């Protein structure tokens, strides 16, 4: 007999099962550690943005991709974390180790609030209720700004100034979120989420407390998102209600759609795609020599191209980037044979 067998439960639940996987993970980690010393300022900034956004994208993937609860309130949750940080910093000049837990607590509370409609509503109606909550959170933030006279936004002094130091902080945050999500998904909670995603009635019959599973998905997802918002506030050094528009929510939803639903790798691939996309458009315009002619309407070109890319993925590749990756991998793994998709 040949092949790879798992004979113990510890082997079955190990995150890294084969030697080659361990090897490639070590290579990846070494590459990530060396990256800031090789990259120039722009690429370092881009990497930081990707790492920062990946936390929020993983959180949304847990909620929408695994637990199957549609949320259009993601920007509102990011705003909640950012505003908690900004307000605590301005009013009490609180340090980082106070604002981060405070953001997490507020995020958990908001997650409970965002999650309550999910006990009664499904699909579209749930999406709409989270959208409504988004507007309310943004309104409260804007209200604080105008009442306290920070009408242009709240300025925050960041304890970390150097982009390279930020890189390692954000890398740690992103990696911690990823490992946390991986662990959660193979534990009882994550399996319960997948079960309620599949079919709620069956999950209930299996002995899963559906209400509890839904609320836990919302609470965990929004706690992570709110903490990402806190990091965002420090990274930008600036909080304002205008920065958390509906478009930001759409960007995060696009990350998990373009990356591929129900896959953490998808969340990361999608983040890379969405964050780099405007820069790629800029580069393409410069290459075509249209940059000067269109310089005043760059954002409009970005909007149009982003809409097109999203439509293209929804129509032609609903599995997202991770689907493309899997197909390419299978093509090489099975060569010279071809895998025929089961359906169609």
């Amino acid at each position: 007999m040949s092949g790879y067998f798992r004979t113990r439960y510890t082997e079955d639940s190990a995150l890294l099962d084969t030697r080659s996987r361990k090897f490639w993970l070590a290579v990846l980690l070494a590459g990530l550690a060396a990256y800031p010393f090789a990259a120039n300022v722009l690429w370092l900034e881009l990497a930081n943005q990707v790492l920062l956004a990946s936390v929020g994208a993983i959180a949304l993937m847990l909620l929408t991709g695994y637990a199957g609860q549609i949320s259009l309130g993601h920007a509102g949750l990011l705003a909640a974390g950012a505003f908690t940080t900004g307000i605590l910093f301005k009013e009490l000049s609180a340090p980082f180790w106070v604002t981060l837990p405070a953001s997490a607590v507020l995020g958990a509370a908001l997650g409970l609030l965002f999650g309550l409609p999910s006990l009664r509503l499904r699909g579209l109606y749930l999406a709409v209720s989270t959208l409504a909550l988004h507007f309310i959170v943004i309104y409260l933030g804007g209200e604080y700004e105008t009442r306290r006279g920070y009408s242009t936004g709240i300025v925050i002094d960041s304890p970390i100034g150097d982009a390279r130091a930020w890189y390692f902080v954000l890398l740690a945050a992103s990696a911690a979120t990823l490992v946390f999500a991986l662990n959660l998904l193979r534990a009882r909670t994550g399996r319960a989420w997948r079960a309620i995603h599949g079919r709620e009635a069956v999950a209930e019959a299996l002995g899963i407390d559906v209400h509890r599973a839904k609320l836990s998905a919302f609470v965990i997802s929004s706690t992570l998102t709110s903490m990402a918002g806190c990091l965002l506030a420090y990274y930008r050094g600036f909080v304002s209600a205008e920065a958390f528009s509906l478009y930001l929510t759409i960007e995060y939803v696009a990350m998990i759609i373009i990356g591929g639903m129900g896959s953490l790798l998808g969340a990361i691939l999608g983040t890379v795609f969405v964050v780099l996309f405007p820069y790629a458009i800029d580069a393409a315009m410069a290459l075509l020599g249209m940059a000067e002619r269109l310089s005043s309407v760059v954002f409009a070109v970005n909007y149009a191209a982003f809409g097109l890319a999203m439509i293209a993925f929804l129509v032609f590749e609903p599995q997202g980037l991770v689907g493309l990756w899997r197909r390419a991998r299978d093509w090489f793994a099975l060569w010279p044979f071809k895998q025929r998709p089961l359906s169609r």
Partner: protein
Amino acid sequence: MQLAVNILVLAAIYALICCGYVLIYRVSRVLSLAHGELMMLGAYGLYATASLFSGHPIVAIAAAAAIALAVGVAVYFALMWRMTGESVLAAVLATIALGILLRGAMILMFGTQTRYPLRDLGWTNASLDILGARISAVGLALIVCTALVYLGLAVFLLATRWGIRMRAAGQHPLLAAQRGIGLHGIYALAWGLATFTGGLAGMLIASDAGLESTLVIIGLKAFPAALVGGLDSLVGALVGSLVVAAAEVLLINYVDPLLSDVVPFAILLAMLVVRPWGLFGTREELDRV
């Protein structure tokens, strides 16, 4: 009295926008979040035709309305028919993506400055005095237009062959298709009508307040009104618009003008907690597993 008139005008705006949401949702179970952008496209259509047919305002308006209808049908055949049978999230996201695409394309084509289509038509927005309250001529036109649209839709849906087919397709697509009703034609018609009424709303609002990007936000704010009334009921859309408009105008007047962007969504949230299917909506579809 002035307050009552303000409420009536705002309710007419919301109602005119809402019937687009309701039509599309009722027929194809898709929520179109690109409605605000489609409204804006309709308004830009009027702006374009106004300069094209200068001196013939009626021709310009008719042409703009025809363009809006055609755009709706085109949207269905270019994008939305591929989304039939996909998940709720995919269809909603497709409309969101369409909205972003349209917003970018419109800025590229028409720029960002505020336009005044009414001036281009050669008309002025006179202020009228009715029973001691002031109302702009466009505001009055809005109310009349909304009444006509709802009357027309009622006649269309209740008495004409295509209207009955449309209701059948909304009620049970599979059975309707079995009886020989072409679903794609019906869905395209629903998108066309929705974009037509939305475009009409866009044109009128742009005539009143100028054509700029805030139009999209008005489109989004009208959506709670549709949901409060019940997403699949036209009567509900009328009542919901009145409720939301009344609450908005009164709260802005007596509490805080900044509330204007949140009030509809706060009402929506309250409604979702108490009665998710809305005042006049059908209940069973929510509980379907």
